Each structure stands twice: as structure tokens, then as C-alpha cells.
């Protein structure tokens, strides 16, 4: 049991570090380090050109998409090299937020399911950052029950073999910045819900695609609704067989869980630093035993998450796949984030309600966290879905009883009786 690099790993780390030292946009380092959760990292300037420039530079040097095949422009690294690369990239990793959906989810899905033409066409510009991707899965009526989605793809009446798509997607990150999207649509409503789906690669500039930002509860607009009105997709852009859309989606979701680098923050290091520096009228906050007890509780959770991730990396380096055990990261961190934000405000007293950076304690960091955190318990799988995943896939417990089991999709009740 050790945290040391092997000689090969150490050599790789040194090379990566030297390259980053020489090439990273150092002017943004501080800003990236103190960025808020779920932001594109920098706000002092338009982040998009800088994100694209950094991605292109990495691609040129072979550091973009570290674990993807070299033939499409990926890094061809071993899993452990990828982890070392991510560790070294450090704060600059945030500049990749724009590409996260493409690199973390769409790309691996194309690698698994795409034909050679699709891979050659779509992967290289995804890797270089030239093209940005989004994922068109969730719908207003299909969240946790993703397979219940209603967006339809029907054969074009002109017999061309093209598909005509109508429907609405929601919670699409970066849709307004995207060139392409990975879409799941229903091609057969008369069979069981998981059986009638098909995946497509869609050009977001196609006629009939309309993107509208969603105003979130925290007043940000990081997500979109995407409306499809008679959008035409050629059959060459179908991903995988007709009727296999659910299997394609599972590949995407599994890759979402596998992206180890994307651990969501807990807020604990920030809380600890805040409490450690806070002088109250009764002395330093960190000497208050009630504060200490809470800090200790969160400390062991944060530490547990950190070393669970290291165990996952160990598994990678042994050539094993980390399993759905990784679901615990989001489950624990999501809840912690909200509790920590609430507690930080409590520590601040009545002034904890202030959100202006200028007057709010800790520059309003915890207030942003408080308002953002409810989303973290929902996006990418609610707490409840994650507990089901852990119970069923890790512990082997039976699935929920399925009220819609075996029913044709168009027979499933859509209203409470």
C-alpha cells in the first residue's frame, strides 16, 4: 500500500508537469482555483476562446482525451497515466468543463457504438475542442425514469431513410454552445419502453432545433431546453441499431459514472479554512466544540471520498473497472455540500444572508453554494436513484416492482388514477 509512482509513472508525471508549466494559461490560475462549483471556470473574460485554445494545445501535444485511441487524436494513455495527467492538469482542468459532456459521455459512447465513418468524422474535432457536444436525454416527463422519454423519431415520409424528430429535451448543459448532440428518441411507441428507443447524432444547427436557456432556482442559466420541430437526421447519423437506444444510453451513463476526475466538491476544505480563520466573540470558531464535532464528521466523509477515489484509481491501475461503487461520491458530496453551506451561514450569523461579495463573509462563496446545492442532489441521478443503484448493482437487492413492466409504451398510465 503506497502512494508512490512507479519509475515509469514518475517519468510520465515529470514530462506532463513540464509541459503544463510551459504551456498552461497561467494568468487564470488563481481564478480557476477559486472558481465556483458548476461554472466554466473563469469570468474575468469570455471563457470559451480560452477553453478552446487550451484544448487545441493539449490535443497537439497528445494530452487531450488522454485515454482515447491515438488514431482519432486521443492520448492513448493507460488509465493510471490518465489519472496522473489529470492530477497535474490541476486547476486548468476546469477549462475543459465546456467539453465535459463530449469527452466524458458522448465520445466514449461513439467509440463503443459508432461505425468507423462516425468515429472518423466526429471524434477528431471533439478532441481538439473544435466541436462542442451536448447530451439530449432528459425530458420534462422523463427524468429519473429516462426510458419514459417521449421525443419521437419517425421515418421521413419521403422514403429517403432519414428520420424526422419532434419533441422536447431539458437540462441540456451547454446546448447553446454546442455543435452536436447525442440524442435518444422513441422510434417505436408500441413496444415496451426500453425497447422502442434509438440513438442519433444530431447537428445542433439543423433547422427546427431551438435552444432556450432554463432559469434555474439559483438564478443561473447553465442548462437549456431544446425543442425539436421536424428536425431531419440522416440514417448515417443513427448511432447503433434501431431499437437499441436504451443500451446506447446505458453506455453513456456508465461512462458518466466512470469519469473519476469529475468528483463534485463537498465544500469541506473551504468550510474548514473559513472556520479555522473565524474569530468569534467567544474565541476562535474552531475551538467551539459544537463546531469541532461537525467539522470532524464532515472531515471523515471528505477523507472517505478522497480515498475511495484513490481506491478506484488503484483498481484502474490494476486494469480493473471501478464499479457503481463510485455512485457514493455524488450521493455523499451532494448532501454534504448543502449541509455545509447551511452550517457556514449559521456560523456567520444574521449577516450570513448577504450575497454581495463585498459585504458577505468569505466573499459570498457559501451563499452561492447554498443556492446551487439543491441541484447537486438531483442532476445526474437523484439521491434516491443513486441509493437504488447501490442497493441493486452493488448489494444485489431486488429491483423495485415495475408497474409498467412489459407494457407497451403507449399503454403506460401518464396520470395518477
Amino acid at each position: 500500500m503506497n502512494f508512490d509512482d512507479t519509475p515509469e509513472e514518475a517519468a510520465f508525471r515529470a514530462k506532463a508537469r513540464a509541459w503544463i508549466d510551459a504551456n498552461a494559461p497561467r494568468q487564470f490560475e488563481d481564478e480557476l482555483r477559486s472558481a465556483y462549483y458548476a461554472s466554466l471556470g473563469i469570468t474575468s473574460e469570455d471563457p470559451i476562446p480560452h477553453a478552446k485554445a487550451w484544448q487545441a494545445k493539449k490535443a497537439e501535444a497528445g494530452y487531450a482525451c488522454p485515454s482515447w485511441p491515438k488514431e482519432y487524436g486521443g492520448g492513448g494513455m493507460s488509465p493510471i497515466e490518465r489519472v496522473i495527467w489529470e492530477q497535474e492538469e490541476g486547476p486548468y482542468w476546469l477549462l475543459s468543463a465546456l467539453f465535459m459532456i463530449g469527452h466524458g459521455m458522448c465520445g466514449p459512447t461513439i467509440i463503443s457504438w459508432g461505425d468507423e465513418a462516425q468515429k472518423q468524422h466526429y471524434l477528431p474535432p471533439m478532441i481538439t475542442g473544435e466541436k462542442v457536444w451536448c447530451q439530449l436525454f432528459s425530458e420534462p416527463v422523463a427524468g429519473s425514469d429516462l426510458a419514459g422519454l417521449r421525443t419521437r423519431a419517425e421515418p421521413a415520409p419521403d422514403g429517403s431513410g432519414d428520420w424526422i424528430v419532434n419533441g422536447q429535451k431539458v437540462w441540456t448543459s451547454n446546448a447553446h454552445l454546442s455543435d452536436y448532440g447525442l440524442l435518444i428518441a422513441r422510434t417505436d411507441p408500441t413496444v415496451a419502453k426500453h425497447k422502442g428507443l434509438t440513438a442519433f447524432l444530431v447537428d445542433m444547427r439543423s433547422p427546427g432545433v431551438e435552444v432556450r436557456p432554463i432559469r434555474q432556482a439559483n438564478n443561473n442559466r447553465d442548462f437549456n431546453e431544446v425543442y425539436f420541430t421536424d428536425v431531419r437526421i440522416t440514417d448515417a447519423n443513427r448511432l447503433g441499431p434501431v431499437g437499441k437506444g436504451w443500451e446506447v444510453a446505458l453506455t453513456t451513463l456508465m461512462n458518466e459514472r466512470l469519469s473519476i476526475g469529475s468528483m463534485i466538491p463537498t465544500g469541506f476544505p473551504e468550510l474548514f479554512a473559513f472556520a479555522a480563520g473565524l474569530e468569534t466573540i467567544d474565541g476562535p470558531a474552531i475551538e467551539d466544540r459544537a463546531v469541532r464535532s461537525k467539522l470532524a464528521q464532515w472531515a471523515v466523509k471528505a477523507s472517505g471520498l478522497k480515498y475511495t477515489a484513490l481506491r478506484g484509481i488503484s483498481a484502474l491501475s490494476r486494469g480493473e473497472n471501478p464499479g457503481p461503487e463510485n455512485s457514493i461520491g455524488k450521493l455523499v458530496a451532494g448532501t454534504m455540500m448543502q449541509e455545509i453551506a447551511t452550517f457556514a451561514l449559521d456560523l456567520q450569523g444574521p449577516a450570513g444572508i448577504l450575497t454581495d461579495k463585498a459585504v458577505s463573509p468569505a466573499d459570498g462563496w457559501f451563499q452561492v453554494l447554498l443556492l446551487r446545492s439543491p441541484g447537486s442532489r438531483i442532476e445526474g441521478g437523484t439521491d434516491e436513484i443513486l441509493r437504488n443503484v447501490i442497493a441493486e448493482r452493488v448489494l444485489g437487492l431486488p429491483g423495485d416492482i415495475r408497474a409498467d413492466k412489459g407494457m407497451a409504451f403507449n399503454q403506460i398510465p401518464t396520470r395518477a388514477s
Partner: protein
Amino acid sequence: MNFEFSAEQVQLREQVRRFLDQHSSSAAVRAVLDGPPPYDAGLWSGLADMGLLGIVIPEAFGGLGLSYLELCVVAEELGRALAPVPFSSSVYLATEFLLATGSESQKRAWLPRMASGDAIGCLALVEGPGPIRARLVKAQVRNGRLSGTKIPVADGDVADFAIVAAQASEGLSLFLVDLAAPGTTRETVSTIDPSRSHARITFDGAVAEPLGPAGHGWPIIEDVFDKAAVLIAFEQLGGADKALEMAVAYARERMAFGRPIGSFQAIKHMLADMYVSAALARANCYYGAWALSTGAAELSQAAATARVSATQAYQHCAKNDIQVHGGMGFTWDLDCHLHYRRSNLLALSLGSLSQWEDRLVDCLKGAVA
């Protein structure tokens, strides 16, 4: 023994709820949340017309001269409706300070105007981060002139006068300051809940009229805070109940996997736990209401109990209301976040949860000793 509100009080509740359904709708709350008006002036004058701004103000000063129980009933409804008005500042705080320690002429000057809605009062106590403590008040009055900065001041931007806590040569004292007079600068500050307006007020030689005996500010603040804690606990209770109701209604309607999500135990049990915290908070609020209305010796204990219980129930119900609503719950368009914001705002008004926990244990110790 009777540990419920009377039939008349229940009738008052229904009347207030009907009025607020109409005048403190989601749209009305959002007009303040999103827009320039710092509070809903129409709603405010409607509440005045119903006499609700002067429930406990004696009839001699233009009020209704009713009991605190009626005020508790109204508070619960205001919390439920997220009423975007300076009610708590003017009614639970400024009014109470005047009633507790105002001179006859001060009462005459302000109470009738407050009951009629013509004047709004607020409390300027806090001066930035930290607990609420006498020693943390740095503002001072010398020769009748007040200097210092108060932030945040709930409704400080819209109030006509402020009850100000400041150091005088005799110690912490209370003053009544006309906010329209010279020497006062106020600016709106942004908070986690913009549906309730807050300000920073800088006093620079403002005329400060003594309120109550000099040097006795702190015990008076504690007394008024006990009362206000019960009343705000009722607002929190109303909010908790409403958030629970929203979540229950959604869980019964929203379908997933071919069935209402409320048929999944994960959701059912989350809602059951929300109900439990709201029900315990209700019982504790009633205890507070009893102590408040009877002037019981255990008011401090009852107030702290109601405060801690209702603060947590509202935070619990509001955050899980979002969770039950899933992605929709995290949109601006649904009202879930309004309660989430309000629950966290009210949790810090009158001081943090930790401070009230501390006070509660002190009271319990006293009761045992």
C-alpha cells in the same frame, strides 16, 4: 384545558388565508423577488385595512387590542404565503420595542401610524458577521447623535424609522431614529431571499431619540426577541406546511415508471419525515403561543424551543420540497426555491440556530436548577 386555537381564531385564519391567496400569490411574491419594488405596497395597505398591522396594539393607539394568539395565526399565514412585506420588522419588532419601553409620547407618535400602515418601523441591531451580542454593537450615540453602520437591516430601505441599538455612556441603549432625517444613508443589499428587502444603513450624526432607560438595551432586546421568535416560528411553520403540501401534491401527480412517484417508499418516507418535523414544530409553536399569550415565566424557554424546532422544520421541508420535485424543483419557475430561500433567510433572522440552541439549554438548566 384547550391547546388549540379557538373557533374565532380559526375563522380569522381562514379570512387571512383567503386574502393572501389573492394578494400574496406567487406572482405577487415574484414581483418583489425579481423586480424593483422592495415590498408589495398594495398587500401592505390591504393588511392595514384588515387591521392586521395593529393586532396587539391597544385600541387607544389605533390597534385592535387583540391577543398574541391572533398575531400567531396571522404570522403562520404570512409565512405560508411568503408575504413580501415588512411585517416582521414593523409588527414583531418595532411595535414590540415601542410597547415594551416606549414613552407615552413615542407610542402616540408612532403606534397609530404603524397600525394604519402609514409608518414602517425596523430594527437596526446587527453590524456584520457574528452572533448577536451586546458587545458586538459598535454604533454609538454621543450627545444625542448616532454614528455607526448597521448591516443587514431587514426593511431598512423602506422603513420610516428604526429602533437602533447603540452604545451610550450608560452602556448598550436603544434609540428611535427617523430614517428620513439627515445623517442617515441607506442602500439596499442583496441577500439569498430578495423577496424580503434588506439594507445597509450608515448613521453619521443622525439624531437619536432615547427609547427606554439608558443602558438597559440588552434585556429589552432579549425580551422582544423572545416574542418575535415565537411569531417568526409561526411564519416558519406556515412555510414548512406549505412546502410539505406542495411536495405531497406533486408526489401524488407526477408519474414515473408508470406510477405516481408518491408510491415509492423513498419519496413517501421523505414526506413522512417532513410531516413529522412540521408536526413537532407545530406543537412547539403552540407551546410558544401559549407562553406568549399568557406571559408565562417560561416564555424564553418556549420561544427558544419553538424557534429551534420551526427553523429546522422549515429548512427540512423546503429543501426536500425541491428534492421531491426533482429537476423541475430546481427551476426558477416553480415556487420551491422561494421557500428554500425564505427558510434560510428566516433561519438567520434574530440570530443563528446555534445561538438559539445555546439559549434553550440555558433556559432548561434554569428550569432544572
